[in-house]
């Protein structure tokens, strides 16, 4: 079943369009990751999906019913979806009263409220903090209580804005596990934003990439801003801020000079182990910093002054015998480079 259907949704502020989505469908009961850099429009989209903000124009339907963006309608819809902020804030009272807040508003009887608060805090492993002052919790604890506060309401949709930003590794894993559990056991639709491709992949294969307010087919990886330079032999190259140069072919579409933005498809980035001191012409040299298995492929992150991600079949990865820490050369296939 389609949960959200968006059509020509735009959010415009004076002088700039921060969100421009021509078409988007989100299925019920599934997990979606909104991936994109800062300013890509992730939070704006999440606010609209959470019925906290109205778009400037366009149409949206929720469970096949057209959404009218009036305060009364939005307020009713907000009782079905809950959003957890990137940096959640706790009301200046106890953890119990924070988690109880939404239930009280919905008129849930006191005895049920007590049970639901305890269950939600159990789920996030924060039951022992039930009487603690909520505004004095650490970042990770606050994030977990914020999840409990939202979960207590048994929403149809759970929206999380950067759920693991600003918390330590231990709490990050706990939060990811909770999100996975919510979707699996309670069948709650989950939509979350992230910068972290690996985190998105660990939770879902439904990844929506946002760039400049619009949905992009290309995954949000290997996106660079830089200058196009023309060499003396009239070939072009793309110079990234730290001096890294990516060769462009003559037939390559796109601007002939000036500042631009490119994306390199990770599948089109060829990875070669360094043999001796010889470096192939136009290759980018770097060192492998991580390798993660994803189904039948491996996602390899290379530090080449900037972070570059290559996506290659497992068999190829094994054949090349590349390990984390190894020096490698990368070659970007012309068809893998796209201008944004």
């Amino acid at each position, binding site marked *: 079943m389609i949960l959200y259907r968006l059509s020509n949704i735009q959010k415009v502020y004076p002088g700039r369009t921060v969100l421009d989505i021509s078409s988007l469908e989100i299925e019920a009961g599934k997990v979606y990751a909104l991936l994109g850099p800062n300013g890509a429009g992730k939070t704006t989209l999440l606010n609209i999906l959470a019925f*906290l903000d109205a778009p400037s124009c366009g149409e949206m339907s929720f469970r096949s019913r057209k959404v009218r963006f009036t305060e009364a309608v939005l*307020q009713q819809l907000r009782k079905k979806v809950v959003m957890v*902020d990137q940096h959640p804030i706790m009301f*200046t009272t106890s953890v119990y009263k924070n988690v109880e*807040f939404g239930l009280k*508003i919905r008129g849930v009887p006191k005895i049920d409220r007590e049970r639901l608060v305890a269950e939600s805090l159990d789920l996030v492993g924060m039951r022992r903090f039930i009487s603690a002052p909520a505004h004095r919790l650490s970042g990770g604890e606050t994030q977990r209580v914020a999840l409990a506060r*939202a979960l207590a*309401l048994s929403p149809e949709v759970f929206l999380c804005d950067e759920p693991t930003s600003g918390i330590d590794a231990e709490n990050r894993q706990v939060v990811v596990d909770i999100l996975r559990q919510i979707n699996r056991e309670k069948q709650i639709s989950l939509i979350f934003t992230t910068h972290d491709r690996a985190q998105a992949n660990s939770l879902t294969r439904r990844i929506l990439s946002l760039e400049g307010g619009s949905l992009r087919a290309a995954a949000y990886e290997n996106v660079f801003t830089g200058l196009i330079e023309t060499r003396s032999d009239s070939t072009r190259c793309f110079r990234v801020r730290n001096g890294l140069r990516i060769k462009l072919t003559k037939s390559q579409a796109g601007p002939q000079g000036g500042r631009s933005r490119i994306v390199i498809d990770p599948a089109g980035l060829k990875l070669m182990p360094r043999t001796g001191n010889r470096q192939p012409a136009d290759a980018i040299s770097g060192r492998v910093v991580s390798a993660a298995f994803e189904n039948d492929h491996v996602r390899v992150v290379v530090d080449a002054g900037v972070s570059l991600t290559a996506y290659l079949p497992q068999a190829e990865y094994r054949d090349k015998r590349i390990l984390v820490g190894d020096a490698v050369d990368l070659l970007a296939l012309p068809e893998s480079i796209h201008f944004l």
Partner: protein
Amino acid sequence: MDLLLDSLVSAFLLVISLDPEMFAIVGVSLKVSFGSTLIASLIGIPAGFAVSFNEFSGKRIVVTILNTLLALPTVVIGLMVYAFISRRGIFGIFDLLYTQKAIIIGQVILIVPVVTVFTLAAISRIDERYRKTAATLGANRRQTAWVVFREARFGIMAAVIAAYGRVISEVGISMMLGGNIKGFTRTMTTAMALEYDKGAFTLAVALGMILLGLSFGMNLLFHYLQGRTRV
């Protein structure tokens, strides 16, 4: 130096002797100050909240006017209210001049801008995420407003205490509209002014000590409540 020391010692003895005249003056002061602070709070807190919480055209002008009213001199308020409540004024028939009610009216005019502006500032400082969190948890506009109000409660309490401090220490309105009538409209500040004119410092210094003690007590109470309420 001797004069100050002698006055302080005599004043201290007057305070501990529980002088009835002095305590009558303190009683009048407390009564009118609490009265005017209560009325001003009932007007100023909702007004400050409404201006801060809502977006409307002309908001900046309203805030500018309120800030300007903060500097309203007590003698100007005294004159204005006098014009209305004196025998020849339009409210002359109520016979308010030289009563405690007249002082309260003047003091309310003095501190409504104080309570309003400080409440407005307290609400404006509240993190926008409180509204957003309340809204996403299903709160309607009224419930969201209550959340914001609750988070701003210490700022609002500070606004009320600041207003109370302003009225208990003012002299112009009490003198012009109260008339400094012994046992009826004589407040601590008007009594201090009178005693100073007479060259009798003992009661003036004693009242000054009580005035400072009251301000200190109010601040202590505020910090105690703040400490207790913050879980």
